[in-house]
Each structure stands twice: as C-alpha cells, then as structure tokens.
C-alpha cells in the first residue's frame, strides 16, 4: 500500500525498475527496524535510496534527507506518512544535515525507526523515499565497494537535472545506492580523495547537491561541518575528507591543510597520530626527529628540528601543528606521544618560570619548584594588597590632576622620544613613547605637591636605594627639594620646573 502510494505521490521515473533488481539484497524487509539493529537496515535502505519513483529533484531531496538523517525527526516519524514528511521537506535539508552531522555518531548507533516507515510487506525498492531517510544509520553496514564509492561520488555530483541520467546508469546495480551509505570511516575515507575530485569537478549544486557532501562527511564520523548549501560542496568534501581521524587513514594526509585550518589548535594526539603514520612508513629507526624540540640528545636519540608531513616547509606556527616523532626505543602510541609532547612543554615552561622566580635555581624537582612558584605568586599578591593599604592611609586625598599632566607631558615627549615598548592597540590612551624620566618627573611633582605642606622639606627624602629607577626617582626628588625650588604654589613650581605639569593644590 505504501509503496504504491509512494509511486503515485512522486513523479514517476523509471527508477522503479532499478529498485526491483533482485540481485540486490537490500530488499526492504518487514522486520521491525526499531528492535533490529541498524545492520539489518543497511541494505534495505540502500535499495530505496537510489531508485525511487520520484523525480530527480525529489530524488535528490530524499537523498539529501537520507544523508542528513535527522535522528530526531526520523524517530518521531511514526508511520509511513511521517517518513514522507521527513523526506519531502527539502527545506529541512540543511538544518537536518547540520544536526545530523552533530549526531552522526549517535545516529549510527541509533536504532532505526525505519520499521515504522517501511510497509509491512517488506517489499523492495518502493520505499525509497522512506528508506532513504534512514539510510544514514545503515551506512556502517554497507559492504565496502570501491566501485560503489565511485558511483556514489559520481552520483552525488550530478545536478538535479542530470539525476535521472546518472541514476539510470549506475543504478543498474542496486549496490550503487549503497555508496552513500558506506558506513564507518574506513572505506569512504579511502575513497574520499576520489570523491573529492569528483566533487570539485561538479557543477554548482543547489540544495539537492548537498547530498554530495554526505558520503564524505558521514564517512568521516566527525563531521563538524555546516552544510550551508550548494556552494560549499567542494570545500566540505575536502574538509570532511580531511577529517580522517584516528582511524589512521592515509587519505587524511591529503587533507592536511584542510584539517589544520579547522583543527588548528586541536589535539596533539591527532598530530602525533599523523606523525605516527609517517613514522610507520619509514622504519622506526634511530633517525627520529622532533619538531620544535631542542632538548639535549638523550643517548641514542637524534632530535633534530621537526620534519613535517607533506611537502610543506617546516613552519610549525604557520599551520599550528606540532609534528612529533617517537624517539628511538620509545612507545609510538599516539597517546604516549602526545603525552610526551605535553610533558616536555610543561617542563620547558617550568624552566622558564625558574628564571623568573628568585631563588629557584637551587631547587630541583617539579613539585618543589611549583610550590615555590605558588608561594611567590601569593607573596606578590599580598604585597600588592599591603601596598594598596599603605597607599590608602598615606595619601587620603590623592589630588593630583593627571589628565593635564599626562597630556602635556605626552605631547612634549612624543616629539623627541622613540618608542621602546610595544603599546598594545587596546590601550585606552594613545601613549607616546615615554622615557624613564617621565615617571620620575611625575612622582617628583606628586611628591612635591603632597609633601610640601606636610613635612619639612629639607632632607625629607633619605633613601637607601640608590640603584636603578627608584634611586633615580629619589635622587630627583631630593634634588628638587634641596634646591629649594619648592614654592607654596605648586602650580607655579610645577610649571617652572616641569614641562607644563598641571598640579592641583589641595585647598
């Protein structure tokens, strides 16, 4: 009943004949898909996928739906009509595809609600519209068939108009339908390249052509791509192909660039994994190279600068990957490689910190060093708090007018000084380069302002520290006071001695 409905509902094409190919073991069975594992559906789905009685455009839609199997929608589909709704709603393609992509791993495990959609007759082929929507889960079940993949690739490349032609030819073998459903990463990935080539050569596709992405995307099991629509077919295919993951497919190598673009910061594990692949090809001999690592040569190891996969020049920051090779005599498990990289990164940074924290040179061992670092940070923070307390009590009214001071000084200093420090672009003020003397002047002017009414001027500043910046500052202040330049009018004094410093006097 449903099958015939299907036929009637869709514009008839000559796909029906293809569907009924008895050689195909994808007969849609009437078994209850819900309970049955996905495996049982793989073939049935395939059948229905390709040759449907719908028009090419509809076919594409259904395929697209299939590939973008939306688990939620499918599961909600209670009956045959539900299946229809899933399929016929071409507009859902992209959304379902994106959601599908997110759920692709899940969908593979999900039981099909296909049985709901499948007519109890379990006939062949006529359920294509419905079955197609369930195709994605069955992907994993499809037998690997290189011819399949090529056909699928070609199939997917064709635009809607040519659909019938394309379908007719490869559909002679019902297996071709299963191309899309090739599950798991392995087979599809192996053929991703061919797919990619085909896809790139394809014409600009409309919605229906999004189907093209599906085999590649799905096969990669980690399709995080958005399927925006037709225009990105080639890119998606490549990137999906590039998503060859820990399955360790060699095809993934060809997509290194794409993968890097997206996973630039991702997983040393992936990197080490890829490098592991390259290790396996040349034998694991003693000539191991380590990227970015200048560590001292352990006995028997040769740690040269890293050699990258592919033909690119070794430029780790460019692509964001760190290529690691296992050292001689060490495990080549991707996890241990990543672990080693991470440990060395950490120890490298710890050495860096050791130089920063005073008194850490004698300390050896990570634990003690880290404790020292923590103590140092805590002490610095306590110092800040203590000094802020002091500031609050020492100077109850901080009445220095800084805007004028800074502005005029800045103008004056801009002319003659050269920038020594990089000013971050997000600084609120556009600072000119400031020499050290500026701080001294500032502090001296502040000191003069505050201290003059408060304390005896002469000999007011006796400072222990005479070295460095603080020493200069104190010297400047001392000199200013010693010279007796201080006048009750701080403003006059400021303008007199400083280049247009504007200091407000407290009343």
């Amino acid at each position, binding site marked *: 009943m449903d099958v015939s409905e299907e036929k009637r509902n869709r514009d008839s094409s000559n796909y029906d004949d293809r569907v009924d190919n008895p050689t195909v073991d994808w007969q849609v069975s009437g078994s209850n898909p819900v309970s049955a594992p996905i495996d049982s559906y793989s073939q049935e789905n395939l059948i229905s996928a390709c040759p449907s009685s719908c028009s090419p455009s509809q076919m594409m839609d259904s395929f697209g739906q299939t590939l973008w199997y939306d688990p939620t929608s499918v599961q909600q589909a209670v009956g045959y009509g539900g299946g229809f709704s899933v399929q016929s709603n071409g507009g859902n393609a992209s959304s379902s595809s994106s959601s599908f992509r997110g759920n692709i791993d899940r969908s593979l495990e999900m039981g099909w609600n296909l049985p709901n959609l499948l007519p109890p007759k379990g006939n062949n082929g006529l359920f294509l519209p419905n079955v197609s929507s369930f195709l994605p889960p069955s992907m994993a079940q499809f037998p690997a068939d290189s011819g399949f993949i090529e056909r699928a690739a070609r199939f997917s490349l064709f635009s809607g108009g040519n659909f019938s032609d394309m379908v007719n030819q490869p559909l002679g073998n019902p297996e071709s339908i299963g191309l899309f459903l090739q599950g798991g990463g392995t087979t599809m990935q192996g053929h991703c390249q061919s797919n990619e080539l085909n896809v790139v050569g394809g014409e600009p596709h409309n919605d229906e052509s999004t189907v093209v992405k599906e085999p590649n995307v799905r096969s990669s099991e980690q399709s995080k791509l958005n399927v925006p629509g037709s225009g990105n077919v080639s890119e998606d295919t490549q990137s999906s192909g590039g998503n060859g993951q820990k399955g360790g497919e060699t095809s993934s190598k060809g997509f290194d660039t794409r993968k890097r673009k997206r996973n630039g910061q991702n997983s040393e594990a992936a990197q080490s994994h890829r490098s592991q692949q390259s290790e396996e090809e040349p034998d694991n001999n003693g000539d191991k190279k380590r990227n970015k690592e200048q560590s001292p040569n352990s006995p028997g190891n040769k740690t040269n600068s890293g050699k990258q996969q592919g033909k690119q020049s070794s430029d780790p920051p460019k692509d964001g990957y760190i290529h690691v090779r296992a050292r001689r005599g060490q495990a080549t498990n991707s996890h241990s490689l990543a672990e080693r990289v991470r440990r060395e990164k950490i120890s490298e940074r710890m050495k860096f910190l050791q130089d920063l924290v005073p008194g850490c040179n004698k300390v050896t061992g990570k634990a003690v060093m880290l404790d020292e670092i923590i103590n140092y940070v805590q002490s610095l923070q306590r110092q800040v708090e203590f000094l802020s307390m002091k500031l609050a009590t*020492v100077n109850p009214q*901080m009445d220095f007018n800084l805007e004028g001071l800074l502005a005029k000084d800045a103008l004056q200093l801009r002319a003659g000084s050269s920038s020594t420090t990089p000013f*971050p672009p997000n600084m609120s003020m556009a600072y000119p380069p400031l020499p050290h003397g500026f701080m001294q002047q500032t502090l001296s002017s502040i000191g003069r302002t505050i201290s003059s009414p408060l304390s005896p001027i002469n000999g*007011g500043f006796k400072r222990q520290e005479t070295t460095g910046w603080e020493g200069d500052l104190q010297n400047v202040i001392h000199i200013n006071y010693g010279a007796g330049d201080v006048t009750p009018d701080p403003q006059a004094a400021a303008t007199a001695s400083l280049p247009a410093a504007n200091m407000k006097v407290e009343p």
Partner: protein
Amino acid sequence: MASADKTINTDVPEKDVFAIHFLQSLSNLRIQNLFNSPDTTNYRVRKIKKAAYVSMARAAGGTSRLWSRALLRRAAKGNNKIVRFPRRKRKVTWKISSKRRRSDQRAPVVEDAAERLRNLVPGGGGMETSKLMEETAHYIKCLSMQVKVMQCLVDGLSPK
C-alpha cells in the same frame, strides 16, 4: 632555552606604562570623591587594590592575555559593566575543564600544583597546564612590575 623563548612571549611593558595606568586609575578614584570620609578605610583599600589590578591588567596588554582578560572581566562584572572583548586574531588555547579530568592522570604531582596555581592566577580555571604556566610567567612579571610602581609611589608620597 632560546627556542623556548621564541615561542613563549612574555614581554612586559616598561614601568612607565604601569605607572601611568595606575596613576590614571587613582585619579579616577579621586574624581569619584571616595576619599572624603576617613572611616571608610577598608573601602578605600579595596578600591585601590582593585584599581591596581585593573590598571595592571590594562598595562600588561589588555585583552591579549588570558589572565588580563579574566581579570578585567571579573572587575567589570563587579561594576556591572558590560565588557566586550574584541575577537582575537590568534587562536586561544581554551581547554574546557572537562579535559582536565584526563590531565589529572598525568603527573598528578604537577596537576595538584597546577590546580593551586589556577586558583591564584586569574582566568586559570579554563587553561590547560602548559598554557597556565605561560600565563603564570607573564602574570608574575606584571605583578612584580606593579609592585615596584606601587612601592615607588608609596615611598614618594609618604612623609618622612
């Protein structure tokens, strides 16, 4: 560690930058007329401390550092200000905390210390250990610079 320094950039601006930022924030505080009542010393202290941290974060590079971003965000939240950070061109090594569960298995000695460090360094909660140490290095440098500036200020202002 020449190669290491090449990859880890912990350049910190000069003292002047810190000083200017700090003085600016202090004058802002002054403008707010907070210091009239002497019995709000604690309040003043807290304000000054907050101003010190914020100015340090700004001087150290604003939003180009993870810890400074976290610090500024924290401070802005306290003021109920909405802070918008420009998008970073470089990718940030954000690691979600769930990944840290796995890192607990790695060298637990290091990870315990890293956990304590995360509580100290602003924004450390979202960082992975290696990134955390990088940020700690920069944070230490900026902190010491800020301490020096404040010390100078206190010395310059304290009556003797």
